[in-house]
């Protein structure tokens, strides 16, 4: 049964991908990309990768679609410019690349094979060590936040770098933006049903964000997803009530502090571990009992992740929106 659903989902993703390439309407392409992400999220669920699925749904289908749409609103260009370049060469390269990957899969371990190397080497140890040394049910959180916490720290800095890039390029540094008069972008104020319905949902979205944030040790989720969901709630408010009131909730300067602060909180935990005599991000030294210390470390760094992700996503959104009303 799972195979059939899997094949069905993958066929849909292929069709969606072809649709993205074929359509000349940029708006349609963005929406199709959102659908593509949602299909991928479903496929990840099928593979029992609930954390990845949640991320894909929140970031791929949710936030990035919103960001793409706001970028589209800036360009005013709704159609792809026809290109005169011959596409045969690109097609050949793509076919060769795809063929090579296909060729590689001939002797890969079968899907779900318990004897596959990925299930034999570090994974069983991760399960055993998580139970014994960290004592939280979600092993994925343990891997991301503790065993490979340094990678996660790097990813937070990737998000931060992206935020800096957008702020730098769009030239809406916080100092200039405050002085600028925001014209009255009106949002959807005149669509009463949407406005009321939307505002009812917002508190629940925020509550859900906090749940995903602080419950990540027990169920799928964590800082990345929570940050994206929280940002989605604030963006929804901005869409409903207009850019000006959206900005009043969380001013740009504050968003920059959030983006930097989350990364500093994460890194600060690492440095604290060094000062207390451990290695960078070795949470064991944070408390007398090493299991409590691991849980404490994970809780704090996940908070750092969430704060930076929310801050950066909102800063990017506002950078687009503020440019739109210039």
């Amino acid at each position, binding site marked *: 049964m799972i195979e059939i659903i899997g094949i069905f989902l993958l066929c849909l993703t292929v069709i969606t991908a072809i649709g993205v390439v074929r359509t000349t309407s940029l708006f349609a392409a963005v929406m199709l990309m959102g659908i593509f992400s949602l299909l991928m999220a479903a496929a990840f669920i099928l593979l029992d990768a609930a954390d990845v699925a949640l991320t894909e749904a929140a970031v791929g289908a949710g936030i990035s679609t919103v960001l793409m749409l706001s970028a589209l609103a800036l360009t005013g260009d709704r159609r792809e410019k026809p290109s005169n370049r011959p596409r045969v060469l690109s097609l050949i390269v793509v076919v060769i690349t795809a063929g090579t990957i296909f*060729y590689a899969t001939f002797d890969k371990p079968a899907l779900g094979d318990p004897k596959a190397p990925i299930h034999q080497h570090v994974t069983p140890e991760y399960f055993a060590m998580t139970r014994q040394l960290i004592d939280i049910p979600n092993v994925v959180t343990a891997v991301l936040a503790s065993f490979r916490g340094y990678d996660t720290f790097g990813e937070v800095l990737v998000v931060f770098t992206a935020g800096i890039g957008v702020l730098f390029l769009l030239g809406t540094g916080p100092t200039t933006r405050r002085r600028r008069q925001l014209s009255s972008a009106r949002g959807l104020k005149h669509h009463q049903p949407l406005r009321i319905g939307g505002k009812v949902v917002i508190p629940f979205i925020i509550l859900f964000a906090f749940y995903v944030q602080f419950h990540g040790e027990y169920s799928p989720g964590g800082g990345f997803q929570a940050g994206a969901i929280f940002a989605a709630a604030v963006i929804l408010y901005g869409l409903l009530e207009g850019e000006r009131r959206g900005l009043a909730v969380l001013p740009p300067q504050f968003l920059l502090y959030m983006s930097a602060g989350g990364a*500093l909180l994460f890194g600060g935990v690492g440095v604290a571990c060094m000062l207390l005599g451990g290695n*960078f991000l070795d949470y064991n030294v944070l408390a007398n009992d090493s299991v409590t210390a691991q849980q404490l470390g994970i809780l704090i760094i996940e908070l750092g992740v969430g704060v930076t992700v929310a801050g950066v996503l909102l800063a990017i959104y506002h950078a687009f929106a503020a440019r739109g009303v210039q």
Partner: protein
Amino acid sequence: MDSVHLPALQVVVPLLTAPIVAVLRDARLSWLAAVVTSVMTFVVSVYIVQHVLAGAVLSYQMGGWAAPYGIELRVDSLNALMLLVVSGASTLALLAGRQSLTLQIGEERLPLFMAAWLLALAGLVGILVSGDAFNIFVFMEISSLASYILISGGPDRRALPSVFKYLIAGTLGATFYLIGVGMVYMMTGTLNIADMEARLAGVGDTNVVFVAAGFITIGLALKAAIYPMHAWMPNAYTFAPNIVTAFIAACSTKVALYVLLRMDFFVFQKNLVDHESQFTYLLMPLALLGIVFGSVAAVFERNIKRILAFSSVAQIGYILLGASLISVSGFTAAVLHLFNHALAKSALFLAVAAMGLYFARLRLQVLRGAGRKMPWTFAAFVVAGLSLIGVPGTAGFVSKWALISAALESNLVVPLLVLILGSSLLAIVYIGRIVEHLWFGDATDKAVQIGEAPSWMLAMVWLAVAANIWFGLDSSLPMALAQQSAIDLLRQLP
């Protein structure tokens, strides 16, 4: 904190200062903070090099978890030398760059820009110290994204399309690398480089591993701008802010080359039958083509930065040629040239940045006679140019000599010698053309009004030039590290 933490500090110092710099309001303060951070990073590199020269291989367990469960940082002679190059190039460029950065970026945007600079630096050193294939990808993302920001800061609007091209090429390269790493993970269940090598032992003859090696090599070749995958590079270097070019040109493609050597030799070499033949039949021809193409293209360019960028295409060819000879002398020459070319290019681009204080466009026509008005900058450019050509007494000579000796040991003596000497002659031609315009050309109206570069910047340019002469006369430090790296690399061969 004692020396145990050195590999972690190497990355954490610039990585954690970046968010602080980003929220600063004062341009001058943000520059100062970046300089101090970069100097600290350089000092950590120097300490690391000292330990490595004493024969140590530094290993660090991130989070206190032993590899392969946690992420390991691992520094041997190959990456120690590269650390010196990256942190040194960043420090020199930043020290020299205050006026140039204020002019080209503007005071208001400088704090965010300096934060991006530190992130690029942290990303590059993060790649270098890492002993974990996925962790390398994470830091590749940081360094690439930050480099795009740095290049997009150029005052010319054409910086934006060129950075977009770079972004597409860079993302493709990184994705190919990630696909390869994913495939290796599928067959081994590990991400640690040393552990990958050990666990690939039984599965080296599968399609998956074979294809993985191909994806990783091609992806990194794209990021390293190996001919013919260099198309993103000349424009990116040309339209970037001048000081950024001095930093990026010295090190970013070389870090990708380093990862290429690391993965090919320390993961695949022992496990894929006859893996080294990809150097003989694929990478060496590309290296030779790159040397010819880059040198010839440089001769015909009219913008001084583009000339130097195409020269970089040729220089990457030299490095790759050395490595493709698969011999101790070849590897030594390659690693030495990694170091020496960074010295020469960094000095050249700093001199160009000094001229850029007065000229918005750096075309040879516009720069005519400028050398006579700024004789010290011009003299620095000439000496660094001699190092690029490979004149005795400069660093460039040491590595070119090493390359020639390596070529003499190979079975392609005559064609290789003709190529190396021929392209050196072309280097004389393109550097000579710049000198001719700068010194002997009739001064343009603009050139009449200018004076010498600010004395502090001039001092830094000459510091870079002095390094070229110092390491030309006494090359024991890079030579020791290069020889040790060559031995390590060759030990991987059957």
